């Protein structure tokens, strides 16, 4: 029974992975053969905990997640959540300096990292299972013992400015960031997660402490542990370490959803590149939306795998408008986005943009499986729907292999999900039909409301 619950949770995790997903039963939905046990509970202070016992390697992965991200900033404090993550991770706390934290982590054979998103901030650590208690205590200090010195904040600001510069030099990261900012312009999701250089410069210790006190509380946090330890021991240690943190203010209310773009908007950038890069984004369902199931599958069909439809549309015969074409679907708590990512010869930018958007508008009339057509045409029609479902089944199975990946995905799901944990992802997906995909395409692609980012080589 525990195995079945764990599997269901994993299937839900697909949302977190943004891998798309579905499957037409009756394939085996059994979890892998290695023994697993799973438990979910909430401490008195509100901290929600997920534990998964598995024994593939002698490691334990601990991911602490906070229900806070760039959406909780203002225009004046853009980049604060990310700066706070940096300070917590690298600049120490009220018990020890940043260098001491790093040294202790290495002494225990641990590797750690963190990432900030629009909705959430995740802190990850992987270490030998024998050091589990150290890992828990480290995460507790990290999240709940903030102390920032002015000098440390100023030093970290410069590191963040370097991170922003790095993004500006990377056409893929820059394009995706700009597409998101343009699509959700005017909404908190439209702010850059990394902030702007001006806002970063203005950030004060006071700003960060105010944000931290409001949001970094156990009743606004989750803890996901996947590791090579008996589940009873994991539970006992988690309760010992985290029970004494006092409950904090209630979590903030959810944001309103972003307003749809009124029309297509475009940005063009030049860089010192030889290839051109094109990003076409449109709004999609959010994390809790029923339409997310179809969106997962649609993105898979349009832009993943051996013969994605979008690439096929742009590479017909000898007319190759794009050298590569992917479709990604990102689900946030209160919004979602489809993002097509194309690489192409600069001379094809206009034609590729025109053709890609024309194709996306046509998707609602496409056939996705042989049953959609009659007669001999059935033979020539790819079974995109079945392929996508099998691909998701593969991804679900593969997700079992990485302990850290599992822990991070579960943590994100716990933070973003608004429903209970009894949803059976497979059942929802199994019921999807070609018509559901057409409806999803109709909702996402037929309005003239795309955010388009073109990056072309600068003149030399």
């Amino acid at each position: 029974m525990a195995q079945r619950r764990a599997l269901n949770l994993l299937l839900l995790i697909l949302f977190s992975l943004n891998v798309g997903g579905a499957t037409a039963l009756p394939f085996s939905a059994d979890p892998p053969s290695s023994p697993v046990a799973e438990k979910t509970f909430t401490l008195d202070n509100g901290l929600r905990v997920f534990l998964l016992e598995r024994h593939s390697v002698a490691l334990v992965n601990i991911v602490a997640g906070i229900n806070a991200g760039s959406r909780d900033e203002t225009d004046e404090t853009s980049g604060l959540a990310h700066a706070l993550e940096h300070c917590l991770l690298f600049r120490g706390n009220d018990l020890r300096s940043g260098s001491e934290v790093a040294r202790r982590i290495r002494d225990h054979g641990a590797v750690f990292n963190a990432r900030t998103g629009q909705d959430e901030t995740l802190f990850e650590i992987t270490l030998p299972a024998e050091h589990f208690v150290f890992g828990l205590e480290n995460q507790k200090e990290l999240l709940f013992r903030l102390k920032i010195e002015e000098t440390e904040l100023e030093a970290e600001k410069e590191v963040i400015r370097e991170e922003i510069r790095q993004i500006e030099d990377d056409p893929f990261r820059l394009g995706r960031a700009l597409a998101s900012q343009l699509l959700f312009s005017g909404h908190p999701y439209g702010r850059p997660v990394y902030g702007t250089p001006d806002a970063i410069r203005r950030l004060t210790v006071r700003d960060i402490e105010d944000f931290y006190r409001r949001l970094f509380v156990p009743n606004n946090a989750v803890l996901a542990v996947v590791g090579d330890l008996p589940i009873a021991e994991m539970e006992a240690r988690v309760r010992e370490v985290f029970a004494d943190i006092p409950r904090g203010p209630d979590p903030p209310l959810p944001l309103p959803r972003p307003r749809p773009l009124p029309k297509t908007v475009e940005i063009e950038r030049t860089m010192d590149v030889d290839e051109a890069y094109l990003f076409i984004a449109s709004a999609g369902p959010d994390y809790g939306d029923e339409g997310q199931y179809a969106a997962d599958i649609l993105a898979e069909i349009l832009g993943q795998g051996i013969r994605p439809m979008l690439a096929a549309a742009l590479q017909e015969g000898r007319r190759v408008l794009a050298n590569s074409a992917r479709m990604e679907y990102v689900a946030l708590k209160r919004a979602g986005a489809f993002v097509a990512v194309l690489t192409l010869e600069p001379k094809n930018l206009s034609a590729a943009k025109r053709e890609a958007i024309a194709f996306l508008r046509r998707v609602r009339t496409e056939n996705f499986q042989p049953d959609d057509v009659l007669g001999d045409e059935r033979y020539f029609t790819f079974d995109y729907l079945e392929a996508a479902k099998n691909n998701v089944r593969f991804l679900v199975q593969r997700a079992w292999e990485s302990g850290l990946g599992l822990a991070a995905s579960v943590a994100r799901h716990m933070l973003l999900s608004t429903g209970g944990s009894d949803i059976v992802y497979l059942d929802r997906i199994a019921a999807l039909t070609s018509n559901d995909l057409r409806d999803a395409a109709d909702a996402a692609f037929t309005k003239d409301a795309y955010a388009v980012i073109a990056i072309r080589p600068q003149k030399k």
Partner: protein
Amino acid sequence: MKIVRAFSLPCAAAALLLVFGAFGAENGRPAIRRSILPNGLTVIAQSDGSSAVTALEILIRGGSAAEPAGRAGISHLMTRLAVDIPDMDVARDFMVRALQSGMTSRDDDAVIHFEFLTEFADPILKAAVKIFTDPLITDVRVDRLVESMRHQRRIESDDALALAGLAQREAFFGGTGHAGSVLGTEESVGAIKIREIRDFYKQRYLAGNIVIVVISDLDPEPLAALIEKHFGNIPPGKPDEAGSTPAVKDPPYPPRTIAKEQVQSVVSCAVPLPPISRRNYARISLIENILGRGPGSRLWSLRTEKKLAYSVSCSADFFRRAGLLSAVLETDGGKTGLARDELAAALDGFRENGISAEEFEAGRAVCGSEFLRANETKGSRAGTLGFFETSGLGAEFFDAFPAELASLTLEEVNAEIKRLLDPAKASWVVVGPGK
């Protein structure tokens, strides 16, 4: 931890195997088994029930370092052809069965990687091995792939880090197959004739030159039978050992600046590595980790204290006969000179003072757990096993690595640091704005 090499009774499915051995079973993980098929093909297999997925790598020895003169890119091109789907029916089958595939050409081998749901193993391997053993090498296909490689080269040249890496290879290995992109150049790829590709295939795609690594939830016997069934008919034979690659160029290595109009500069310092051996691999992996793998490593202060970079790291690139160790940071273009000086000072300090006993112990602990984490998934583990096998370390080294790491001494590591990081043997490359 010691290597276990137990020769067991051949089971029915593996009756034709010439060699059958297992290692690693005593450490609690599923045993890794080595066998050699009658046609001479080496198989490294592991049964692992952690998922219903099979990961399979086909490694063809002799990569870009062993390409014919003036034909850089032919190894990559041939490997692309060996996985190029011949018609829509096969594409449809692969697609519906959710096959994940990829390929790459490296210095000492070419690698084809497959992952799939194990329930589809038989039809997928039947079709994939047919392509592999009888690739369609035609003008139309070659032209299409050459165009694709042109596109890949443009993306490679758009990446300042990749440019810096290529420049470092040129410094140490210029004129050999270890220099330049595995994608070749416009000229070298353009010069490749269809006949040359076919000859390359006939010489290299022979069972005695191929290693299969497979990790699956199938039990050992059916897994052995599956591999035997699909790979047992690859033509036997083994190419002549590729001529020895010339030694690393002698220093000095003139500093090189590559202009790229962007915000940041990539500042890279690299030193050549000795030929790979188990001891060298363990020693240099540890040095790489202590020097520049994340918070607490030596170069980390360039980020936290000197505020020069967001990304600062060290990485080792191993080949059979050489390799290179690179320390790299990405900094604002205006700080390029300062970053170079600070990186040089950090490397000098590392060389002069060596590491303490505490750093040594912590480094071994992190290196060991990072090895476990990095090889947790079947795909990554198959990659490591394949690399160990074709690089000459042997797949058995996968289980022997922790013991090798544990047997290192502080003195030998400090001596290696001193020897490796000799400033006279270092090459400096900057890719970034301005002069």
